[in-house]
């Protein structure tokens, strides 16, 4: 009996795996021929990264050598392009007129790397990362001393390419359109850690970067120009921005093709004799670019072709990154979604971040960084749809701990632990050491145990376990942790500890703080994010870039939101002074933009109420044109300096209070603070500027200036306390700035000066700013430094420079919809 003729187009991972699976089931059934476009045997394409990195050779990644084809009687047409398929006659036509008849045909033509249509994309030295020829080109480029590489694409492939090039000694830079690396697999936290890990390995990343053109000389690439004007020089440019199914042959042959070759669950195309597997197919609307689904498809196809019934149901995906020493795993809905809950674990000391997403009591996804050993376990739980309610408490600690405790409630499990069981990995503390310390020294709190045994004193990840040991030892005698309140539900650390850590550990970004301080949420909440943004801004002036999405709306759009969603605008009037020109400009703006209400504020300024958000930039432009800048009436920062008319006009005035107010305001405007700050200067003790209910107030007297702090006339009515008296205006300005800086550095977010003062005591402020003159000078110097970058009028930036233009107009306007009946 003659065998059926099976022809496979594609000698890659899918084509050969399909053949392997068929041979495994029925080695005698088919006479097999394979066409391959590359002039080489079947190799493991996903291992090209280690080949590029020099960690493996080509021979290491060959899956099936020539002997395999020979032993299985397979005819290999390597390096021979197939030009067409005649579905009617059931034959494959290749280059040179070769025709091969088939009974069954498998299309495994894989995918093509996507090339960005940038100017200069055809220059020599611009490559993709798809086959061994690409790898050879990259290796050749790395031979030049000091050679530089740019990789477009911060996905899996791009990062592996960049890492490989860096391993080859090149300076490699990854350019990525999105703000997170591997954003389809990783959340922001893991993306941040990955970026740091790559930097350690010599790979730089430029995020949020739009490529404009590839530039070159004499036909050879020399750099990549970005839309922001930068040009990144390079000797080789790798495009790794994605792949698309290679379905051209199928389409030309008349098979049904959408994004890929359309197949049913048996991997059958629109022609009953033609099947397709791998990256070229589209199954139930999905195209896959990872290896696991290909294996699933090949198994289903082999069943179908060997008397079984192929039933491919689609695949759930997981990813690992092949960069040596960087452990990354991601699967499923790693980012959560509707009805999902997150369990987040961070271990700052080890650089570990884990996030398991639970939906309906089952694992729906996971992302692991730094310790991905349990990735397979989470993936199995996810695929099997296992109910994890029972192990929810410990699931984040991984398989070993969870199964170690299974069936026991956590406290019983802890009680059952042997004394030799290690509890704290950082400090090598066993359970026995903790229990005996508790008993011998009468410890009752976590802090006591920490101090005596060092358990949970380092990274803190074992804190819950240590608490359980204490509870199991003492029963009701255990005193739960008391102390300063945590910043918010995302962390166990209070504001003060976070501020200290930012400075002590050189933390310069929000993900860095969240990792170091073991945040339990992926990206914080509406209460910690604005606080962190301020703390970072205060700690690293001129360096940290303000994150407007972590600011309340008033500060984000530099106007106050009102109850109806309109805004109010308050231009600055230095020390409460204005001019007829300014008043005319304000009146004109009110007319021009039909602003419904104009009101004098308590801080001696004019409030324009009811401005439409879309009008804000134009309103500001007009006010700017009249010489006015933002009054920061919305700011957690310096707002107004209220004054009386002082010695200039008043018969009781002892000093030029208006002049001092103007000097203070011109010197201090723009400074951000934990909460709003209002100043006032009164020319005599009659106190017409109401200095004694301001955050900082000055009362001018014959012999100089009394400096008052800690007043409020808001939720609480609070009179100021006298800090000290100084003789000159210069000294007053220096002292007030020093107090402001001390508050900026020590206050908790949203904590007004009077609350800050109640917390630390007037004596402390006195000691630091009045008694210790060196410290006052140092505080003043830091304030001055911070002001260097703070005094930027946000209105001008938005009115004339187009900063955040998108904020002020809709992204689109939809046409009137049809009215429903």
């Amino acid at each position, binding site marked *: 009996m003659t065998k059926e003729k099976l022809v496979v187009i594609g000698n890659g991972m899918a084509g050969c795996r399909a053949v392997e699976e068929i041979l495994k089931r029925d080695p005698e059934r088919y006479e097999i021929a394979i066409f391959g476009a590359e002039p080489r045997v079947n190799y493991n394409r996903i291992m090209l990264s280690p080949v590029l990195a020099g960690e493996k050779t080509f021979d290491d990644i060959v899956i099936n050598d020539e002997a395999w084809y020979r032993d299985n009687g397979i005819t290999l047409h390597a390096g021979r392009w197939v030009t067409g398929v005649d579905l009617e006659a059931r034959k494959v036509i290749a280059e040179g007129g070769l025709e091969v008849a088939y009974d069954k045909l498998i299309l495994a033509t894989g995918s093509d790397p996507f090339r960005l249509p940038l100017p200069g994309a055809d220059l020599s030295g611009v490559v993709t990362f798809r086959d061994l020829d690409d790898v050879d080109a990259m290796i050749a480029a790395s031979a030049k001393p000091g050679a530089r590489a740019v990789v477009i694409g911060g996905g899996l492939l791009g990062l592996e390419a960049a890492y490989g090039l860096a391993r080859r000694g090149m300076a490699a830079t990854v350019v990525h359109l999105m703000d997170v690396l591997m954003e*389809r697999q990783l959340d*922001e936290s893991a993306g941040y850690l990955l970026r740091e890990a790559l930097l350690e390995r010599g790979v730089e990343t430029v995020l949020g970067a739009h490529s404009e053109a590839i530039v070159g000389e004499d036909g050879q690439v020399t750099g990549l120009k970005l839309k922001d004007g930068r040009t990144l020089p390079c000797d080789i440019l790798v495009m790794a921005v994605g792949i698309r199914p290679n379905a051209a042959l199928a389409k030309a042959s008349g098979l049904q093709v959408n994004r890929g070759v359309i197949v049913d669950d048996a991997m059958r195309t629109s022609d009953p004799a033609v099947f397709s597997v791998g990256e070229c197919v589209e199954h139930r609307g999905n195209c896959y670019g990872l290896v696991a689904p290909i294996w699933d498809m090949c198994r289903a196809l082999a069943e179908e072709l060997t008397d079984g019934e192929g039933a491919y149901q689609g695949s759930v995906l997981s990813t690992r990154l092949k960069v040596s020493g960087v452990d990354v795993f991601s699967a499923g809905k790693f980012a959560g979604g509707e009805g999902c809950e997150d369990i987040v674990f961070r271990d700052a000391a080890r650089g570990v971040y884990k996030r398991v997403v639970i939906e309906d009591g089952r694992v729906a996804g996971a992302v692991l960084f730094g310790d991905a050993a349990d990735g397979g376990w989470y993936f199995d739980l996810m695929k099997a749809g296992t109910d994890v309610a029972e192990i929810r408490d410990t699931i984040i600690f991984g398989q070993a701990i969870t199964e170690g405790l299974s069936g026991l409630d956590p406290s019983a499990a802890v009680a059952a632990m042997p004394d030799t069981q290690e509890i704290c990995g950082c400090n090598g503390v066993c359970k026995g050491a903790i229990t005996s310390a508790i008993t011998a020294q009468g410890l009752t709190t976590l802090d006591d145990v920490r101090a005596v045994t060092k358990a949970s004193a380092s990274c803190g990840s074992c804190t819950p376990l240590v608490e359980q040991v204490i509870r199991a030892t003492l029963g009701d005698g255990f005193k739960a942790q008391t102390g300063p309140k945590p910043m918010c539900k995302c962390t166990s650390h209070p504001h003060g500890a976070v501020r200290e850590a930012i400075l002590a550990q050189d933390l310069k970004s929000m993900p860095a703080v969240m990792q170091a301080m073991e945040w339990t949420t992926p990206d914080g909440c509406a209460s910690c994010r604005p606080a962190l943004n301020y703390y970072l801004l205060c700690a690293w002036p001129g360096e940290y870039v303000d994150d407007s999405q972590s600011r309340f709306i008033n500060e984000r759009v530099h106007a106050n939101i009102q*109850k109806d969603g309109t805004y109010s605008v308050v231009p600055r009037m230095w020390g409460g002074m204005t001019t007829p020109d300014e008043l005319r400009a304000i009146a004109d703006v009110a007319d021009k933009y039909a602003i419904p209400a104009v009101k004098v504020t308590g801080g001696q300024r004019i409030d324009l109420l009811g401005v439409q958000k879309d009008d804000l930039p134009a309103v500001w432009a007009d006010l700017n044109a009249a010489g006015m800048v933002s009054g920061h009436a919305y700011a957690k920062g310096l707002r107004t300096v209220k004054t009386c008319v002082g010695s200039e006009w008043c018969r009781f005035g002892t000093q030029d209070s208006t002049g001092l107010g103007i000097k203070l305001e011109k010197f201090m405007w723009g400074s951000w603070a934990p909460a709003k700050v209002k100043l006032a200067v009164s020319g005599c003790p009659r106190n017409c500027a109401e200095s004694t209910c301001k955050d900082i107030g000055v009362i001018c007297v014959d012999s100089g200036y009394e400096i008052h702090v800690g007043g409020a006339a808001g939720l609480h009515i609070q009179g100021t306390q006298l800090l000290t008296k100084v003789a000159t205006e210069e000294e007053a300005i220096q002292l007030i700035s020093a107090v402001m800086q001390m508050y900026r550095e020590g206050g908790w977010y949203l904590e007004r000066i009077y609350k800050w003062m109640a917390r630390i005591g007037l004596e402390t402020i006195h000691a630091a700013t009045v008694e210790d003159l060196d410290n006052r000078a140092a505080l003043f110097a830091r304030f001055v430094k911070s002001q260097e970058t703070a005094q930027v009028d946000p209105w001008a930036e938005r009115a004339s420079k187009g900063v955040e233009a998108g904020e002020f107009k809709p*992204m*689109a*306007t*939809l046409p009137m*919809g049809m*009215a429903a009946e």
Partner: protein
Amino acid sequence: MTIQTFDIDPAWHDVGAVTDIPERGSRRVATAQGDVAVFRTGDGRVFALVDRCPHKHGPLSQGIVHGHGVTCPLHSWVIDLATGHPTGADAGKGCTPVVPVRVQDGRVLLAQPVVAD
């Protein structure tokens, strides 16, 4: 608290690129029915809600986006972006209509709410 329902135009409208929305932020889309707030979360997902808090109609597009929630700028209710329901202490007190949205090839496609007479 009245819960208003919306009819949805079955057609999908391209309202812009995903990258037009700031990460952990929002943009407004003007429609005949009033503004729709389109959100982009830190993990890159896109959601859309009628731009109105169920509490006192605060514009949710102006709030702070965190996780898959937005905190209303007026009185700090936290609204679940996926369901439009308030969370935490305000759970169960009304909801904001969800507007169907999807992302295709980096573009944001929105189903338009239509005026229901």
